[in-house]
């Protein structure tokens, strides 16, 4: 059985973690925590970490003992420098809380790249995890911001993403709010839906890695996939239904842009992939699966295939790393422009203020 650590850092990470906890209850009702028990596929420890206590209070499905408040007034104000200092000041406290939970095989660190706490804490936290747990595999699940959210968030995303890639993590799973906001009309509903999508995919991934598969994929395969290409990847998911129970359609749908957390053309841009298929035996047509995998192999370098026999219509999770990330490049260009504009804006404001002060430079107060 895998020992899994799931850390939700910052407001975005907290909410994704809360969505995972909710899904572990079955995801049916707001009151399910009162009458049901969480059913994680493996031994899973969840910790929500935040400097803003109000963000922690908003959580509904995460137990109080799994909410770790890092005392730093009320958040870091989207200032990554303040956030980093806050982490260093509370590093031991944070790590002690994690170490109390035991040893882990894999850790998922869920965070937004644009906020204050998550974007500043997560790279440092991953570094500390790698330092203290020698055999742990750490996979950040990084959420990219809406592009119109502001220049600070853009620059935070740019620098945070770079730091996440620089630490010794086993790849990075991307989710793009900008891409996913098409899921719903209003922002709040979109956030909930994105969090739920990430939660379902992550739990499915853990369950699959910890299952006795018909065709085996394991944590090693997962790490191999995540180390491919740019070590940045994303996940696609699809579930067949009674109208169309075909596993072939489910595989194809899981690779379509609409099913992905981050916009990509899998057949052209995937470096390595893992396709995990779960369902009743009668729906899992091996020939169809093999053909679809072969089709994917034509574009991606290598495709791991996992089959989990479980009652129900076929569910397909596709995990892959990318060989090219044009959207990231665009993001960095936008971030750079935003930084320049911010710099110019500050200089102009500073000059204007200096000019204003110049009017009284040789004067003194007279009373």
């Amino acid at each position: 059985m895998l020992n899994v650590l799931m850390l939700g850092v910052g407001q975005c990470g907290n909410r994704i973690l809360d969505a995972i906890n909710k899904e572990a209850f079955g995801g049916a009702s707001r009151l399910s925590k009162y009458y049901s028990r969480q059913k994680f596929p493996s031994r899973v420890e969840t910790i929500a970490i935040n400097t803003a206590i109000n963000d922690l209070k908003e959580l509904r499905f995460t137990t109080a003992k799994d909410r770790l408040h890092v005392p730093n007034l009320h958040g870091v104000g989207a200032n990554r420098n303040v956030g980093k200092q806050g982490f260093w000041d509370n590093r031991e406290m944070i790590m002690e809380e994690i170490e109390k939970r035991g040893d882990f095989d894999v850790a998922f660190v869920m965070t937004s790249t644009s906020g204050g706490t998550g974007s500043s804490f997560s790279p440092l936290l991953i570094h500390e995890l790698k330092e203290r747990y020698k055999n742990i595999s750490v996979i950040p699940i990084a959420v990219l911001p809406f592009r119109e959210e502001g220049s600070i968030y853009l620059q935070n995303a740019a620098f945070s993403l770079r730091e996440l890639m620089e630490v010794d993590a086993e790849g990075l799973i991307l989710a793009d709010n900008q891409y996913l906001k098409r899921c719903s009309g209003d922002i709040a509903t979109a956030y909930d839906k994105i969090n739920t999508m990430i939660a379902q995919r992550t739990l499915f991934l853990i369950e699959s890695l910890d299952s006795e598969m018909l065709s085996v994929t394991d944590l090693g395969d997962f790490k191999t996939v995540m180390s491919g290409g740019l070590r940045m990847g994303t996940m696609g998911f699809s579930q067949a239904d009674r109208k169309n129970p075909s596993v072939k359609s489910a595989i194809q749908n899981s690779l379509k842009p609409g099913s992905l957390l981050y916009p990509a053309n899998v057949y052209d841009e995937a470096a390595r992939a893992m396709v995990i298929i779960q369902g009743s035996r009668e729906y899992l047509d091996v020939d169809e699966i093999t053909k679809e995998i072969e089709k994917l192999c034509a574009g991606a370098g290598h495709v791991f295939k996992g089959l989990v026999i479980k009652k129900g219509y076929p569910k397909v999770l596709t995990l892959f790393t990318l060989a090219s990330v044009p959207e990231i490049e665009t993001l960095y260009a936008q971030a750079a422009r935003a930084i320049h504009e911010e710099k110019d804006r500050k200089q102009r404001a500073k000059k204007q203020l200096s000019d204003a002060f110049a009017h009284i430079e040789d004067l003194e107060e007279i009373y």
Partner: protein
Amino acid sequence: MRLTYLMVLIVVILTSSQAKDSNNEVTFSDFTLYTGDSVEIASYTIQLVEVQSVRDGIVVIRATKSGGALDEQRALLQNNANSFDGGSENGGLTVTITDIFDDQSAKVRVEYPKDMGIPRKQTAESGSKGPGSQPVLAVEKSFDNDNPSVGSEVKVTVMVKNIGGGLAEDIVVDDQPPLANFVYIAGYPPKIKSQLDPGESDSAIYVIDAVKEGTVKVPPIEVRYSDSKKNTKSNESAPFNVVIAPKSMPDLDIKLNPSGSIPLGQAGRLNVSLYNSGKATAYKVEIKSEIEPSGGLDATDLDKSYFEIDPGAMESYSAELTGRSSGEYTVNLKVSYQDGNDVLLKEGSTTIVVLEREYKYLYYLLILPLLAVSAWLIKRYKEYKY
């Protein structure tokens, strides 16, 4: 020829029978008599001695026959035929009081054989030697209670009255010796004056106690006396029966009526009732209780006493019982009482069950799940409360 003889024989028999019937033919005559008046027919004399009770229809008649073959005085009930000297059917007389007008006169029917001749009435004044100038003593013996019980007291009254026209002397009352069913207490023998003038009466009372149940024939009391010529005469009262009932006793029925089983540590009630179904009062009624086994059932106010309980009366009370230890207990009540002399005992008992402590498992079955759910909800709330 034979037929002729047979018919002659039948005619002879019929003729003989008719002749016999005409010889024994009885007829009667009614007379209105006053006290002292008499009716004479053949050698018989029927005299109205006294109208003893107009209400009860009792008239005293004296029947005499010349020569002393008959001298009998009886108290006749109205409309009851009395035969003297074998009755009119047998050559004697049958006398019936058909009407009583007042305490001095009555209508008397005298039935007699027709061949005796015609009866004649003799008034007290007209008679040359009627009883009007002679002393006639009427004697009566009566009980104040004709249906006494064993042990009860009876007063016997003896009354002698001179209903004749002359002085009665040397009067002696001869009462029967004490009866086997009675014992004499006081006043015996009855003392009556030795002389009584005409119309004068005397009485005596003595007291006896009934001692044995049964029907007793009280024999007549005889009074003997003599007239001025020292002719000795006698008279006696009518005999009567007395039924002596068994001795009146109090009889207490005791009933114990518990309110039901008693839960452990709680109290219950025991209702006790005493009903005197006897015919005598129960005195000094004492009720003592005993509980077996002891120690597990406490009783309060179970012992009781009453000064008396009259026949047909009921006394009841309620005692409190407290169960100290579960089990089955027998409550015995011993009732002692007196009927005046003897001490009588009665017992009653009942069983009281003290229940085991009753646990309300059913309520727990309802409450426990609620508590469990509440505890679970509170636990979960605290787990998630931040």
